[in-house]
């Protein structure tokens, strides 16, 4: 078992900085997701941890041991990649047993562990199959099982679910998490899919353009995004972000949205206190689609919106509106009905509003 400490970790490819001075502590036995869009530096970071990419600057510590100059094979890390790399001429059993065989583990011990792993991955009835005959879904289960069986202290996964179909992905998410709870390895998981990161990880490191944007539990990242990038990247549909202006109105604080209307907030509310620490009166107001209430048009303290699209996406209905010419989304329960063209009032609950500085994009009053 091991913790991973990255300090000032930097990777440059010529003039291009792929990872910039990254500081990150991945505690022992935790499941940490490196999350971000393509080009954010997540895979480069993982490759440096794995030892398959050299480090330009900074340190990588496993517990207190600097592994920067240790070859990949000596770091006791297991990998699973997007394209499973299974030996197709071997049976499933032989593939899963492979890592133990090269370590000269006793035959009876190998057999016991292969069968335990197969049961865990629900591959019992496939053990004698040639791997070439497996489905894509099963191949990835074998790849994960083959890596997990050697019980490496650190387990690295690079987008292991991205080639799988949606239903199986949902199933594997649960199984991966369960696997980690059982084996208690330190897991680093690279993904561009915020749903995977949210559902699997104990902590998420959100990256963009080589720079760490925020590091925290899924709830922290989702509920208290540190900047507009994180706010926008997490959640689907993403957070509604509207430019607005702060105006003092006696004891109240007014958020002015131009033609979309006004929101008045009690001066002693937490939101007003936060807003007062804003560096400028021009702020970006954020609210998540699931937090907004839809009411009749014309009410006080509501934004004006007009429905232009209603999208049933299975369990939920996404209502698309235009607010001040900008797209604004509200999620409702399935079979929610509202006519296109309806003018409505939109009420963002005061306790669930986010504020960002318009110039820097940083959250206002975030801890």
């Amino acid at each position, binding site marked *: 078992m091991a913790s991973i400490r990255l300090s000032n970790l930097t990777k440059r490819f010529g003039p291009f900085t792929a990872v910039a001075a990254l500081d990150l502590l991945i505690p022992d036995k935790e499941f940490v997701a490196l999350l971000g869009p393509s080009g954010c530096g997540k895979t480069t970071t993982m490759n440096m941890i794995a030892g398959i990419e050299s480090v330009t600057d900074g340190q990588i510590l496993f517990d207190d041991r600097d592994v920067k100059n240790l070859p990949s094979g000596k770091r006791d890390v297991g990998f699973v990649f997007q394209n499973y790399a299974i030996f197709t001429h071997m049976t499933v059993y032989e593939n899963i047993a492979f890592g133990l065989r090269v370590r000269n583990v006793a035959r009876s011990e190998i057999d016991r562990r292969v069968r335990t792993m197969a049961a865990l991955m629900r591959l019992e009835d496939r053990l004698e199959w040639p791997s070439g005959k497996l489905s894509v879904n099963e191949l990835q289960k074998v790849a994960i099982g083959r890596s997990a069986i050697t019980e490496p202290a650190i387990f690295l996964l690079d987008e292991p679910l991205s080639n799988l179909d949606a239903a199986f992905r949902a199933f594997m998410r*649960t199984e991966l998490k*369960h696997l980690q*709870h059982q084996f208690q390895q330190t897991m680093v998981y690279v993904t561009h899919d915020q749903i995977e990161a949210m559902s699997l990880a104990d902590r998420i490191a959100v990256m963009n353009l080589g720079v760490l944007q925020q590091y925290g539990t899924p709830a922290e990242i*989702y509920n208290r995004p540190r900047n507009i990038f994180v706010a926008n990247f997490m959640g689907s549909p993403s957070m509604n972000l509207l430019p607005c202006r702060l105006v003092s109105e006696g004891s109240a604080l007014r958020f002015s949205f131009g033609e979309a209307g006004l929101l008045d907030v009690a001066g002693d509310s937490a939101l007003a206190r936060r807003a007062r620490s804003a560096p400028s009166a021009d702020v970006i107001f954020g609210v998540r689609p699931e937090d907004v209430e839809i009411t009749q048009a014309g009410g006080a303290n509501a934004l004006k919106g007009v429905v232009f699209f209603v999208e049933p996406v299975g369990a939920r209905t996404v209502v698309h509106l235009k607010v001040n010419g900008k797209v604004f989304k509200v999620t409702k329960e399935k079979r929610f009905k509202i006519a296109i063209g309806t003018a409505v009032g939109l009420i963002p609950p005061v306790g669930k509003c986010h504020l960002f500085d318009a110039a820097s994009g940083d959250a206002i009053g975030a801890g």
Partner: protein
Amino acid sequence: MARLEFISVSKSYGKTIAVRDVNLSVEDNEFFCIFGPPSCGKTTLLRLLLGLVEPDEGEIRIDGRSVTGLGPKERNLAMVFQNLALFPHMTAAQNLAFPLVERKIDRAEVARRVAAVAETLHITKLLNKVPAHLSGGERQRVAIGRALVRDPAAFLMDEPIAALDARLREEMRVELKRLQRELKHTLIYVTHDQEEAMSIADRMAILENGMVRQVGTPDEIYNHPQSRYVAELVGSPPMNFIEGEVDPMSRRFRADKIAFDVALAALGPHVVAGGPACFAIRPEDIVICAADDPAGTVAAEVYEIEPLGAFTIVDVNIGETILKAMVPGQLQFTLHQPIKLGFPTEKCHVFNRASGRLLVGAA
């Protein structure tokens, strides 16, 4: 503007049956999705419509007239391709004009039609740009515009946005829906993405091995699947299934292997006592309650928790069987916590285990 019909259409390639006895009718002005897994016959249906291949049996009609024997050009349908293939060295205007120039239409008329189409699609300002300088959404408009200048009877699209990233795809489907509404054209849209089909279709057809399994609105497909196949194919996370049997006397479903015994709504005519059946319920329809809550009828444990922000997926296990439940908001659970589950009768489905056919439908 056109009504498109398949009447008992079949098509084989050698020994492979691509399309079997398909009957479909797409109404004028409808946004119609053809949905199914890879190689279920979706693309063959499009090729048949376009006239690229002829059916072995059956007939295709456009506005009531058989088009058998008519070549692709005579059918006046417009195909928008998967990769939105625009000529990279041509401006948007030249791309739009291309199908007309090719048909040797005179220059003034070409200019007039390009301007009119650009106006409709709100791309007048983009006419002098080359594709590399356009956003994904703008490129799509140009690609559609290029089909539109010919004033086709209907548009056909084969996974037009499959290659784009998730965020852009979400934007594009809203855009496509809006465009179709404004253009007032029949649009047939092929996709293997259930969420995409659900979100944009007025109606959709679900295919399995070249056969149409169900046709209906997204609401009907999602809430009233007529077979296990359709139930499994739509929804994310997928529907939960439990094998067991129906007891018609007590109107209850009992699982084979686990302690699971729940009440059902009115039984359909096909229920056989003790016949192998499969219970199904969507994750968002399972009710989670405290272990001592009388509203819960089935004892379970929390297996894993997936917090997704707007909602939480709670994986629960009843013995060895794992179900996915989905609840709004961010709920706190602990692993292995004992809970009770409720299964509202009006949300429960039961399928025949052998045929997959619906036995007991949700209300």
